[in-house]
């Protein structure tokens, strides 16, 4: 069955259409009823994605499915599922009641785009997927359009996306001009490091750097993350970013494998800049969304350590780290989201004394932050350790040293949040509340992921089998 090769995307399209039809016939006062079926449908799609299925190519090589792309898509769907669970409480708010299904439709469309992007076999498909993944997110960022900041975030995001897409396309056009093909297989052989191709690569790199928010292309990130609703922020910083990082890594390893000497230096420098600047800016943030935005910029810098390894170890670790990052960051955002929905508070000092009123939420937050910081025995430690190993394999010990020193800076600001929750006393702490079932399920999934993925080594070994021969 050829059609099964594209099952992730097709199933998502199917449920998107179903939701669209249901939405038309649903009376205005019962729009909320769509939430549960939508989540269940998506859950089914997620589970179906894990079933073994055929791999192969479609459309003459434009669309490729391998075991590795299947895995990456599964990581994204699991992440998106958690985001959905975390957004229920927010969707049920009065001001969102007339656009509940739009949320699902937009979110599913972006996911479809990312999946096509991951499966792309040529630059055209890659670009189409990327655009489909980006434009609906801008609409999502402006979801709370009655809030000035949210509207601003949407506009900023769409402008930046347009700009970066333009740069990216310019690079792709030059690649086409010099190699005469858009297919990845063909481009590999055509790239020989000619000056125009170097220029093309720089444009391509810059375009992608915008999407992943690599320093110095990161300036949009904090404003957009702060303005967008929490769940969209977490979607942007985890799912969108994860997808872009993974495809970027694969393209560097495969398409640009002949000019590694060139991009190695670029990655080396941007890695240091991204880690350090992301961390230094995170130090001074009070708003948790901005805080997590800068921390996620820094995390992208760490991921570059795996890329620079250019080995199977590096590839495996990048994907492994994205997996870990999905659970850890969604865990942190999940707590922020629950508290923001209940109390509207999203500053670090609002969290003073949180442990004494909401111990479980605080513990989840601490676990997630420790995972982001790379403290054992949670998964983040293993991810970071392997990233460092990948870079050390190339003998880049100075880079590793800079990176580990950066983890200390990062630890400092993560501990500031822990300090607020556990150490600080507060006369008027956030009162005890019981969060909704969906959020709790989402957070439980995150905690399970954070705890299990590291200690249970078969996860890593499994990814390692799939990445065999990628470089």
């Amino acid at each position, binding site marked *: 069955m050829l059609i099964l090769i594209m099952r992730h995307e097709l199933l998502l399209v199917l449920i998107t259409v179903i939701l669209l039809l249901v939405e038309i016939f649903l009376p205005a006062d019962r729009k909320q009823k769509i939430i549960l079926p939508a989540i269940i449908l998506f859950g089914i799609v997620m589970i179906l994605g894990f079933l073994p299925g055929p791999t192969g190519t479609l459309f003459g090589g434009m669309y490729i499915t391998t075991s590795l792309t299947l895995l990456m898509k599964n990581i994204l769907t699991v992440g998106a599922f958690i985001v959905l669970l975390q957004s229920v409480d927010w969707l049920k708010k009065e001001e969102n009641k007339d656009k509940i299904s739009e949320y699902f439709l937009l979110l599913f469309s972006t996911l479809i785009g990312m999946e096509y992007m991951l499966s792309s076999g040529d630059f055209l498909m890659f670009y189409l997927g990327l655009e489909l993944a980006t434009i609906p997110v801008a609409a999502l960022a402006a979801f709370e359009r009655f809030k000035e900041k949210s509207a601003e975030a949407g506009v900023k995001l769409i402008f930046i996306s347009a700009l970066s897409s333009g740069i990216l396309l310019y690079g792709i056009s030059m690649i086409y001009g010099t190699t005469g093909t858009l297919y990845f297989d063909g481009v590999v052989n055509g790239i020989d490091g000619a000056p125009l191709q170097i220029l093309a690569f720089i444009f391509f790199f810059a375009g992608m750097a915008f999407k992943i928010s690599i320093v110095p292309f990161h300036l949009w990130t904090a404003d957009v993350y702060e303005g967008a609703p929490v769940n969209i922020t977490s979607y942007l910083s985890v799912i969108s970013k994860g997808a872009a990082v993974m495809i970027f890594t694969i393209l560097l390893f495969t398409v640009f494998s002949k000019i590694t000497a060139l991009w190695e230096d670029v990655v080396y420098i941007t890695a240091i800049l991204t880690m350090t600047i992301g961390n230094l800016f995170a130090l001074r943030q009070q708003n948790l969304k901005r805080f997590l935005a800068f921390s996620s910029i820094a995390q992208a810098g760490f991921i570059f350590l795996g890329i620079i390894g250019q080995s199977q*170890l590096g590839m*495996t670790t990048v994907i492994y780290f994205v997996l870990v990052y999905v659970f850890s960051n969604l865990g942190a955002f999940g707590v922020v989201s629950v508290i923001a929905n209940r109390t509207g508070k999203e500053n670090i000092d609002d969290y003073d004394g949180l442990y004494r009123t909401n111990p479980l939420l605080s513990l989840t937050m601490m676990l997630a932050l*420790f995972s982001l910081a790379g*403290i*054992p*025995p949670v998964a983040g*430690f293993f991810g970071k*350790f*392997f990233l*460092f*190993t990948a870079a*050390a*394999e190339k*003998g880049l*010990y100075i880079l*590793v*040293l800079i990176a*580990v*020193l950066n*983890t*200390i800076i990062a*630890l*400092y600001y993560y*501990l500031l949040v*822990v*300090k607020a929750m*556990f*150490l600080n006393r507060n006369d008027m702490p956030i009162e005890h509340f019981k969060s909704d079932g969906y959020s709790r399920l989402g957070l439980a999934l995150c905690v399970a992921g954070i705890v299990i993925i590291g200690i249970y*080594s078969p996860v*890593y*070994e499994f990814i*390692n089998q799939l990445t065999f021969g990628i470089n």
Partner: protein
Amino acid sequence: MNILFLLIIIPVLTIIGILFTRDNKQVRVVSAIGMTFQLITAAVIILWFLAERNAGNTAEILFASNYVWYETLNIHFYIGVDGISVAMIGLTAMVIFAGIFASWQVEDLPREFFITLILLSAGVFGFFISLDLFTMFLFYEIAVIPMYLLIGIWGSGPRHYSAMKLTLMLMGGSALILVGLLGLYFNSNPDGGPLTFEILEIAKVQIPINVQLFFFPFLFIGFGVLGALFPFHTWSPDGHASAPTAVSMLHAGVLMKLGGYGCYRVAVFLLPEAAHEMAWIFLILTTISVIYGALGAVWQKDLKYINAYSSVSHCGLVLFAILMFNETAMNGAIMQMISHGIMTALFFALIGMIYGRTHTRYVNEMSGLMKVMPFLAVAYVIGGLASLGLPGFSGFVAEMTIFVGAFQHADTFHRVATIIAASSIVATAVYILRVVGMMLLGKINKPEYEMITDAKWYERLSAGSLIFGITAIGIAPLWLSNMITKGLVPIMEKLLAMN
């Protein structure tokens, strides 16, 4: 099943048990039962280990278990003990046992306190039994991070500042260690075979000298931060002074020994040539640690600061002795770790108990306490005498061995360093006797001190168990030093092969 697993399983079970408790009393009882079992397990391990050795089992590592963890990277979960790690296990079990009883009166969030404390001890046990650098590093960080919460939540004084400073400096040390470990890993198989993190495998490899010289400072300073190597010791006085009693005990008593143990087992053992080349730099630093710590203690008025600086001095002596590279001094180094571990735990326990009664830690504000709390006062004197190296206590055995070993080097540099370090004993006598004189003897200076009661049963148990340790080692040190000497054989072989 390997008995060493119990060292990890018992703390985990205890933590789970604490989760099911209802009130403060149950929390304490469960913790006490758990750590009593831990102490018994440690005692059984020591006795069993000695029995095996007596029966003629000369294997380098006993009770070994080796499981593959991450196959791709050849990371193993590999545990086992030699004479030195067995001794450290005994020390840890004793200190955590005493620590539980010393924190009998924690009122604020007791459940969380005991869970974090026991988690910390689990990390320490794991560190001492690990034979794979990866798991060793993992347990190292597990042992460090709970300190942040323990000091930050239950500490006193500028606890937020101290907790952050301590955590960041120790994690900074672990960052250096990480770079060093990766360097060892990628040089663990020069013939191109599978790389490994296993200490015993790496020890067989001849690592090129320029590689060694590059990575040795990372490892030695990295572990040295935890071992209070000058000038990276500044976390120690602040941290110890702010920490609650049991945490100071565990931290000065055991956690700082992780540094010495790591320097010995990883830095010096795996990179002996570089250690030999660079020893002079670190010898100077450790000598400064020893003398600076002792003089610092003389100047302090706060009991905890006195003891913290004294710890810097004594732990500096450990690193000092390791860098002497001969069997006597190394033996002394390990003895010193054990001896100082128990002694300083006793001090911090007593300081906590005294503070609980007088509500001050300033020496000059207290006087004549011997009359109202004879037990605690006598215990303090015993600890003090052990600290200044009176024969009959553990301190004498350890320091004597160190200085005899150090003096075996005939050159001027080593001799001078040894003499300077040895003179710290005088300073030690000054600050110990001064405290005893001012605080315990003389007249009672405040009327409210007349009301003070002597130690309660749990305090007696806590202090008594540690005093037992000090005197047992002081009176019968031979079994311990024999055990350690056999453990030193591999490293001595490497060092001798070099000359």
